[in-house]
């Protein structure tokens, strides 16, 4: 269940990171890796980035690097920005509803009430 949820929100987390500034692939992976439990395998981010580009939510450019070969940078497009804003609204409503249902019971109470 958590895998499906993670898959669903990961692309918006990528868009959220790109809202600040363009990032190259490895940099995005590193930033996502800092968030606990968001990214299980770093390699899976690249197919996602490719799909976001095909869907027109991000755009890419090659830029020279001071410390090695050129890097492919990803940047947010206007449709990407709109998709992120729509998701942010939905997510706030959704997470607030789930939290309201979960909040009365702390984890220990949940395990105690299990048969």
């Amino acid at each position, binding site marked *: 269940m958590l895998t499906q949820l993670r898959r669903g929100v990961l692309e918006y987390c990528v868009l959220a990171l790109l809202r600040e500034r363009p990032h190259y*692939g*490895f940099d995005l*992976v590193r930033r996502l*890796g800092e968030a606990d439990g968001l990214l*299980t*395998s*770093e*390699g*899976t981010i*690249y*197919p*996602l*980035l*490719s*799909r976001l580009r*095909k869907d027109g939510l991000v755009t*890419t*450019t*090659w*830029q*020279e690097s001071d410390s*090695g*070969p*050129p*890097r*492919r940078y990803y940047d947010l497009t206007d449709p990407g920005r709109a998709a992120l804003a729509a998701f942010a609204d939905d997510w706030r409503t959704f997470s607030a509803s789930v939290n309201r249902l979960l909040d009365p019971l702390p984890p220990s109470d949940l395990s105690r009430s299990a048969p």
Partner: protein
Amino acid sequence: MPVPDHPAVAAYLARFDAASAPLPAARRRALRENLVGHLTEAVPPGADRRTVRAALKRLGPPEEMVRAEQREAPPAAKRTAPVRRSVDHEERAVQLLTLGSIVPVVGWLVGAVLLWRSQHFTVREKIAGTLLVPFGPFGALYLGMGAAWLTSSTCRDTISIDSTGASTVVSDCPTGTDWTGIIAIVAVVVALVVPFVVGSVLMTRVRKRLGVPDRRPRRSSSPPQWAQTHHH
């Protein structure tokens, strides 16, 4: 793009190549390019075995990356715009910037537009391609021919007619070493050669970046890299 030189990295990439066989060639190439770029960042030169293993573990099994790709881009013809990953576009751009300039200005101009429309050249490479190949080698040739004509036309012929009616033609050409002419010839030769060198460097870089092998046949007796097998 150089692949980090480590047996574990080579084994990982070989595993990826095997796992990604069912994917379309363009997608395999793009994913491999991402993978190599990632490993170049994650595995610094001279990294010890533990660092390499940790980087590969974080990256996850290559089979999982392939599964993610199949999930994100199913084979159904849902997406209409195919993703182009060959270097045909870039080759056309470089050919027009160099050989295409035989058609004055227009050929080069079309090449410059293709160069700037490419997604696989960096901005620095695009600037180099534009500035170091100004109007292409044939542009340089035409300029050189123009300069030669101007130099030859600096001789002035004077016709004098004496009292008997006989005419004499006297040519007045500048004497001594014609440095302007020599400099013009050197400039034309440089301008003819530099665009081909720049074009070749640009194509080498973009081929390496996309992992597209050079089409030119090699004289080496060793088998090509893709045919080599690793024995452990």
